[in-house]
């Protein structure tokens, strides 16, 4: 009979998890290589002589020559590029900072922890509140709670982040005195306490979009055929929710969050300025205003690598959670047979 052909399992769709990991790693690596190239040409795209830009129009000719020497601007482009790549691959560095006179890498590594802590803190606040709000909105669909959850956060999304930051400072720091106005506190408790307002500010910008899409996801999954099947088979409602709905909503939420995270890092750099937190934001602003090219390159490169790393990790977690992500896309289709 046709049964043999009909019901033969689609073997070609199988792809070992190891292969998937290798592909993801290669993709991430190629992105890093492209970013490295882009960062190199960043400096060459500036019109005019970078050395003049750094030292100013009226700088001494000898000074300018010295800086050109230091930045290797007198060498041919290929040689410059080779040196740049060599420096990155051997030392993970982009050269000494012009302003500080020390390795750009060391500066980044010195300023990064505060920023990372801030991003992590803001992520925790964002995810926890977004999940709770989206869950409330989805389970009370079209009720007052649902409308409130969807409309109110849009206000904070419409405002620039620094403005929200200033409002929070004036209310919670200046008037209520619950938090410091700015800076980073000492000791473990003081450190996290002082980061609370900036983290909340960043989170407020992220929560609305995350809540909206997560709510949609939840509603879609709660309405899915397999949930109806589980209900019809009398699987307890709590199991359906914890095991099936939650897990199905988890993957898309994670993907969305990882995309948002890259915007979040951009936002964090600005928010650090508002709250006078000495992190990567301060470093980047200093570097840009001083035309400190090697330092700008280092900050850009390290931020970019961080984002790539996050999306790589996300992809791997998603593949672990969702078997469909472990497959090559072309082997879908042919559903009916």
């Amino acid at each position, binding site marked *: 009979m046709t049964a043999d052909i009909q019901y033969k399992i689609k073997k070609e769709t199988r792809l070992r998890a190891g292969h998937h990991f290798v592909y993801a790693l290669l993709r991430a690596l190629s992105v890093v290589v492209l970013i490295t190239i882009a960062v190199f040409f960043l400096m060459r795209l500036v019109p005019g002589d970078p050395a003049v830009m750094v030292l100013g129009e009226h700088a001494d000719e000898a000074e300018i020559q010295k800086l050109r020497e230091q930045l290797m601007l007198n060498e041919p482009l290929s040689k410059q590029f080779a040196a740049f790549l060599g420096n990155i691959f051997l030392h993970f560095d982009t050269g000494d900072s012009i302003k500080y006179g020390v390795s750009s890498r060391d500066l980044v590594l010195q300023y990064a922890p505060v920023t990372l802590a801030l991003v992590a803190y803001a992520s925790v606040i964002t995810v926890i509140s977004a999940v709770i709000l989206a869950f409330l909105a989805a389970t009370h669909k079209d009720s007052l709670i649902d409308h409130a959850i969807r409309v109110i956060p849009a206000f904070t999304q419409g405002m620039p982040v620094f403005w929200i930051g200033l409002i929070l400072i004036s209310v919670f720091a200046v008037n209520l005195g619950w938090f410091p106005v700015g800076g980073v506190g000492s000791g473990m408790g003081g450190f996290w306490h002082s980061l609370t307002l900036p983290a909340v500010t960043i989170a407020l910008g992220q929560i609305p979009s995350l809540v909206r899409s997560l709510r949609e996801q939840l509603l879609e999954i709660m309405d899915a055929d397999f949930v*109806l099947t589980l209900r019809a088979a009398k699987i*307890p409602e709590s199991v359906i929710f914890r095991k099936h709905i939650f897990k*199905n909503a988890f993957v898309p939420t994670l993907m969305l969050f990882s995309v948002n995270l890259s915007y979040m890092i951009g936002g964090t750099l600005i928010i650090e300025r508002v709250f006078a937190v000495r992190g990567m934001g301060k470093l980047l602003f200093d570097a840009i205003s001083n035309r400190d090219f090697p330092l700008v390159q280092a900050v850009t490169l390290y931020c970019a690598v961080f984002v790539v790393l996050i999306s790589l990790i996300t992809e791997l977690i998603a593949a672990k959670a969702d078997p469909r992500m472990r497959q090559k896309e072309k082997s879908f289709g042919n559903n009916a047979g």
Partner: protein
Amino acid sequence: MKPILEVKNLNVDLKLGKNISKIVRDSSFEVYPGECLGILGESGSGKSMTVKSILGLLDGHFTVSGEARFNGRDLLLEKGETLRRMRGKEISMVLQNPMTCFDPLFRIGDQIRETFRTHTELGRKEIYGRSIEILELMRIRNPEEVMRKYPHQLSGGMLQRVMIGIAVAMQPSLIIADEPTTAIDAITQKEILDEFIRIKGEYNTAMIFISHDLGAISRVADRIIVMNKGRVVDRGTFRQIVDEAKDPYTRLLIEKRKAVMGQYVRVLGNKEVEYA
């Protein structure tokens, strides 16, 4: 003989804002043990809503009134847990699209096990053995391999077999199949239909078979009710429906079907063609 399911004056209203639409109106029918009742009708005629309301699968926007006695107990009066306990073990359901009826994140074996775990006291090993039995019963060739598969790795026909297997596994007294062959390609449709006929013959389980396909329903159902715009407009055996339909809508359905069959007959050179 007492009917296993007796539905009387079932009404389902959908309330959206200030609009109330009547989805099912005054429907009454009964299903006897070992019998297959076919519910025939176009999409939107209220067939699915009828069974979903009986099983309490509709959300708060719907109001259900009337009576649905299952073994003497009114299902519409049973609240949450009782109804839930009864479903799955005594009544099981097979839905239209097998491709979307399994949770994509879990292996087939896990999903079969979940049903066993909720309804029986069996241990892990016993459940595994029973699962294999079910798949073999549904004539799936390599059950062990299928158990390890994720839903997207199997074909629609295969998934529907597994689904029917799960529905039969609990030895329910009533199986409700809501358009179980609609989303499946033609060749597999026939095989899935055969599966239903076989189950009916072997287990003597009562069945409600919902379809818009006259051909499919004629092969499985002992009696048929025809639904149109939320009402039961015709009832009887397949022959009665074909030969002496009272309702103009039913006659239209039959006419169209006959016209299609007529074409077949002409093309195939007047050979005997049955309604299948």
